[in-house]
């Protein structure tokens, strides 16, 4: 434990103006080391990103024009193959977000505004711990335990809500369905989205909260008037990070799902659309170099897709911010 004492500051003016000309900023060793380290780190990230892109493009290029048999039996050319996988990826991710985002926001609000402190702190801690669980563990749990345990739920949904296309068709008897994959994904999305939402909720200015309370707002009305508008962009950012995880998650989906590149929105049946990442994991053992290049090309598709989704989300957020300014 150390305390900063004002006495340690040297006496007199800290920067005598006659020694440093005004045009030149004051720099010491620390400044130079820090600025070059920061610059280097930023450059390195860009280089790594570019290197990954080049690797995927070069290695994947042959994968876009292979014989039709390589893409079979569900597709005949690369674009339909990749398109179907992309559909599966988006379907699982969207379903996961539909489950995770309301949960995460509710949890974050509970921690930031509803729970008494002695409850809020442990709950927040447990949720953070959830983020540290490796995805293989979630995959094991989802594939071995949750699939069986959830069969009654899946059958119930199919029987009573079967008229809704998502829940229609003949339900799977094993439970290895997109539905369960989405549930497992949502559990993996919740910690990160919750953590960020909680952070921005807690940063709502007291002044605005009191403005609402002073008008006679209930706690929920105060949240609606002050907390949510203030946190909107932060919540979107948190959801985007979660979406990134859901789109790219490999092991958990691969272990839950026996997926194939096909298009089906019946998430309780055995016709499970594979996701790009889980498909790569499942097919990578295949030694065929033609198949390998196809897989790498699908990796590039995922890379570009994730990038576009993030870009779109950021554009929406900045536009919303600018409209308010």
């Amino acid at each position, binding site marked *: 434990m150390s305390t900063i004492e004002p006495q340690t500051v040297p006496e007199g003016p800290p920067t005598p103006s006659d020694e440093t000309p005004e045009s030149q900023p004051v720099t010491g060793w620390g400044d130079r080391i820090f600025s070059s380290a920061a610059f280097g780190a930023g450059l390195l990230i860009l280089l790594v990103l570019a290197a990954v892109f080049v690797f995927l493009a070069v290695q994947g290029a042959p994968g876009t024009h292979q014989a039709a048999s390589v893409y079979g039996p569900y597709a005949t050319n690369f674009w339909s193959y990749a398109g179907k996988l992309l559909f599966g990826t988006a379907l699982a991710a969207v379903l996961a977000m539909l489950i995770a985002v309301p949960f995460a926001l509710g949890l974050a609000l509970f921690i930031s505004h509803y729970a008494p*402190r002695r409850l809020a702190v442990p709950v927040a801690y447990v949720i953070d711990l959830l983020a540290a669980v490796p995805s293989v563990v979630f995959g094991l749990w989802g594939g071995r335990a949750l699939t069986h345990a959830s069969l009654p739920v899946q059958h119930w949904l199919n029987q009573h809500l079967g008229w809704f296309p998502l829940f229609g068709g003949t339900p799977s008897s094993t439970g290895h369905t997109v539905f369960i994959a989405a549930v497992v994904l949502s559990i993996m999305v919740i910690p990160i989205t919750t953590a960020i939402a909680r952070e921005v909720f807690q940063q709502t*200015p007291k*002044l*605005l*909260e*009191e*403005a*609402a*309370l*002073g*008008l*006679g*707002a*209930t706690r929920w*009305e105060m949240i609606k*008037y*002050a907390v949510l*508008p*203030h946190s909107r962009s932060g919540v979107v950012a948190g959801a985007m990070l979660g979406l990134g995880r859901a789109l790219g998650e490999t092991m958990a989906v691969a272990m839950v799902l026996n997926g194939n590149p096909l298009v089906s929105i019946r998430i309780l049946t055995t016709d499970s659309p594979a996701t790009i990442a889980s498909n790569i994991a499942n097919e990578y053992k295949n030694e065929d170099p033609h198949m390998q290049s196809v897989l790498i090309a699908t990796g590039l598709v995922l890379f570009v897709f994730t990038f576009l989704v993030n870009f779109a989300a950021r554009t929406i957020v900045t536009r919303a911010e600018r409209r*308010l300014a």
Partner: protein
Amino acid sequence: MAKSIDVSDVNIYYGDFLAVQGVNMSIRAGAVTAFIGPSGCGKSTFLRSLNRMHEVIPGARVEGKIVVDGQDLYGPGIDPVAVRRTVGMVFQRPNPFPTMSIYDNVLAGSRLNAKKIKKADADEIVERSLRGANLWQEVKDRLGKPGMGLSGGQQQRLCIARAIAVQPEILLMDEPCSALDPISTSAVEDLIHQLKDDYTIVIVTHNMQQAARVSDDTGFFNLKATGEPGHLVEFNPTKKMFANPDDPATEAYISGRFG
């Protein structure tokens, strides 16, 4: 309708810390009552206990009776949310809702009270409140613009418009001019003079000239000693308070000899 407030034996706590002790006073209906005193003497804390905003802070609580219109605000079964709808509040720094237009800011409180408001009624409330806050002429052509685009003084009058839009019985003001320039301050003071016909106004101020200018009654709060709770030293008509105070401590404070 303006209402009087009767305060008896009020103690205010932050957790175990007694911040304000033993306050008794009668605040007249349709008058302006000012609280003055040095920083940290509990005048803002006491003001916030008048509409149960004090207890928003975790661990904060109030003992004693604060009676408005024959009803104890701290009685059993009294909903703090309902109290705050009849006792409005204006804060130290202007705090319009940043994502709302001027129009929606004024209506914010009304929309809490009644779920649906007809467009014609809403227009009427907005115009009446903005006129009441002396802001109508300045903003009537840009009601759809964000409230944050106004100057500090205009924002504060917007907050006053928002508070009176729900027609409270009492209006509390916590140093409403401390973040404003002299011209905006004078606009708000003029407004306070007009508002007291319809509302009971209680204002906390650091500026003794302001207390002398706007108020009918004045309460002087002080600390007994450093670390001791704040208490009400003297409560008298403003004229008497500034000309011939009962308590020597009040005179010392007002004449600038301490505080």
